[in-house]
């Protein structure tokens, strides 16, 4: 493609090297280590299995579940189609209600804005509500680097932060940890914790509560994400289970919300749809315990200084992709993770990004690109799926993730130069388009019989097929293809006999 003056440049992706939208290893390599972790697989298998069952039971009890999904999908699609207009409306409404809106092109800008706002308050610590956006931009790391201490207040985020670990699930960030590990993390990292702390959930929660309460009451600045923002009214929404988020949203003097621009909804009424879809899809609950809504600043009640940071970080680039933009419809419920057989075995860290699982495998390459460097780990993500389609079935806003994966694979091969795989694919297509050549190739494949053992199975294949034969036998190719059988005397005789069988003893077919 040639570029000339006046042609709009494609919108920028999230820049390489900032934030957490890229791991340091390709998926198969990272998955290798995770697959070796028996504990992880047991934890994940149990946790996702439980959530899956709960989700199915609570979605099954709504007679209009499918209609809700259609509504969610339609609202989101409409939102994406007029995102600029809705964002400007949101900015106007938030400003009218006493908030301040900031626009951040990428992680670096967003981090700088938040650090500046915190510094302006004179505080050197902040409490945080669990937030995907701030995890995506690496806000905690940035704040620490400029001398501000962030405290995560969501229980699971706290566990991850104390262990100097990364979240591995959108909704259950510490899904890869079990209770014994959590007890150990608390004993090692919470100052003054009871050294005899056991692994009972209530005791673990109490230990965290004691630690957090002090932070809630003494910290003057909070940072949150947002599940939704309503353009019509300027209202922000956070949905959570523990109430720690509500503490952050109401107790401090200053509240800074960092939100991806795709989270906006047109109308207040739209919340009705999403507040049904989200909890049922994510935790399998009919309603989440805490839904906090706030609109700008209310004198005398809650934070008196409110800032909304609207984050792009590759989102307009995703929006510009006619087919791929559907990924922006995601409401981060994590239903797709919980049903994904690949996620279930490998866990979230194998994906290298804040967004793991099926949606991560499409969203991450869209936000951050696949070719910022040679062997970009993100280019392995669209292939981290067997295309089984369970994610599409589970998604409350009907994002066709398998088709998006196939589309991204195509975009990837179009962007890369000549590879051995591409040559093989071209060669295969060249043979398969010519029936005569194809029939000759089929005959040659029967030569595979010579490598088969006496029992007719092949148990060792050369690379790149060795990945197959490491765990699977292969039957020797048959002597004869179907097409040659079909036109052979034997084939014709067999089919004649089959036809005769019908004529002699029927009609068997009934209307069962």
């Amino acid at each position, binding site marked *: 493609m040639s570029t000339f003056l006046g042609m709009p440049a494609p919108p920028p992706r999230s820049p390489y090297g900032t934030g957490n939208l890229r791991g340091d290893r390709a998926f198969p390599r990272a998955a290798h280590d995770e697959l070796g972790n028996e504990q992880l697989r047991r934890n994940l298998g149990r946790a996702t299995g439980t959530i899956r069952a709960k989700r199915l039971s609570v979605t099954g009890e709504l007679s209009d579940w499918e209609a809700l999904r259609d509504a969610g999908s339609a609202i989101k699609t409409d939102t994406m189609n007029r995102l600029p207009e809705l964002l400007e409306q949101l900015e106007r409404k938030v400003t009218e209600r006493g908030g301040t809106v900031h626009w951040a092109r990428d992680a670096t800008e967003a981090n700088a804005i938040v650090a500046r706002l915190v510094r302006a308050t004179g505080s050197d610590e902040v409490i945080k509500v669990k937030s995907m956006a701030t995890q995506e931009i690496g806000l905690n790391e940035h704040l620490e680097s400029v001398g501000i201490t962030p405290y995560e207040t969501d229980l699971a985020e706290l566990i991850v932060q104390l262990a100097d670990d990364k979240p591995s699930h959108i909704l259950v960030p510490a899904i890869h940890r079990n209770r014994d590990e959590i007890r150990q993390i608390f004993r090692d990292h919470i100052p003054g914790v009871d050294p005899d702390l056991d692994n009972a959930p209530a005791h673990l929660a109490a230990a965290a509560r004691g630690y957090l309460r002090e932070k809630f009451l003494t910290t003057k600045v909070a940072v949150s994400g947002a599940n939704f923002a309503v353009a019509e009214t300027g209202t922000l929404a956070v949905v959570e289970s523990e109430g720690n988020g509500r503490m952050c949203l109401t107790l401090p003097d200053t509240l800074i919300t960092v939100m991806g621009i795709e989270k906006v909804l047109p109308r207040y009424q739209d919340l009705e749809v999403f507040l049904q879809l989200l909890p049922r899809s994510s935790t399998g609950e009919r309603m989440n315990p805490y839904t906090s809504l706030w609109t700008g600043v209310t004198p005398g009640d809650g934070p008196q200084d409110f800032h909304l940071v609207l984050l792009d970080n590759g989102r307009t680039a995703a929006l510009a992709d006619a087919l791929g933009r559907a990924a922006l419809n995601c409401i981060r419920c994590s239903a797709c993770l919980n049903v994904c057989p690949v996620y279930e075995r490998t866990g979230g860290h194998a994906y290298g990004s804040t967004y793991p699982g099926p949606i991560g495998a499409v969203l991450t390459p869209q936000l951050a690109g696949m070719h910022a460097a040679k062997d970009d780990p993100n280019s392995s993500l669209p292939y981290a799926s067997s295309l089984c389609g369970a994610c599409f079935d589970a998604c409350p806003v009907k994002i066709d993730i398998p088709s998006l994966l196939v589309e991204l694979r195509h975009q990837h091969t179009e962007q890369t130069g000549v590879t051995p795989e591409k040559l093989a694919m071209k060669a*295969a*297509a060249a043979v398969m*388009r010519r029936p005569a050549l194809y029939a000759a190739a089929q005959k040659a494949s029967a030569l595979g019989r010579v490598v088969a053992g006496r029992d007719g199975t092949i148990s060792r294949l050369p690379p790149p097929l060795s*990945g197959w034969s490491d765990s699977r036998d292969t*039957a020797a190719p*048959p002597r004869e293809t179907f*097409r040659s*059988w079909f036109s052979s005397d034997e084939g014709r005789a067999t089919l004649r006999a089959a036809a005769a*069988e019908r004529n002699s003893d029927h009609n068997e077919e009934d209307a069962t």
Partner: protein
Amino acid sequence: MRIGLFATCLGDTLFPDAVKATAILLTRLGHDVVFPPGQTCCGQMHINTGYQREPVPLVRNFADGFGDASIEAVVMPSGSCAGSVRHQHRIVADRYGDATLRAGVDTVAAKTYELSELLVDVLGVTRVGAYFPHRVTYHPTCHSLRMLRVGDKPLRLLRAVEGIDLVELPGADSCCGFGGTFALKNAETSTAMLHDKTDNITATGAEVCTAGDSSCLMHIGGGLSRIRSGTRALHLARILAATRTTPDILTKASV
């Protein structure tokens, strides 16, 4: 009915027994099975691996070969190939083809069926006169289940088989881990999925695990063979084609 049989590249080349069974079964039910000789491959492997330019001639070849109006229905013993024809050929035609190709693709897609769909929905039979006195478990392959939505059609066909002892497969809906080139690109993850699948299959005590896709069965059968499980992988068409007079004649591990 005049039915065009698409053998699929995998079926034609490596697992002809499943295709033979399909032809025999439909012939026995009184239909005229035709095999357009120019057929090769539907291009699914290319598309799913990320190549949409290369399969354009394959898509055209398929539409040309089966476009003939005298072919009333097109059948293939493969849910994933049927899924590709019905859902993916359109994408390729729109991107790299022309309006003629798109029209051809639409015409053929509208009459393309996976075997159980053809039998139950089009031909209106569930009792096909099969006899198969074995303990069998059924794995619904992902593309049949979620791309084609075949639902319980294969099970209805199996339940009507005389002598069969059909046992439920735990975790049946979970992917077996095949996924085409996924099995090579992410061999270890694929293997982890396969192990859970073969564990579930052997737990049923079935002699045979059946499905509507030779590709998934190649994967599952390869895994069962490696662990020396006594269970064989066998295509659904072969069970449905087996009768008292002609039992499943076919050899071990040939899907």
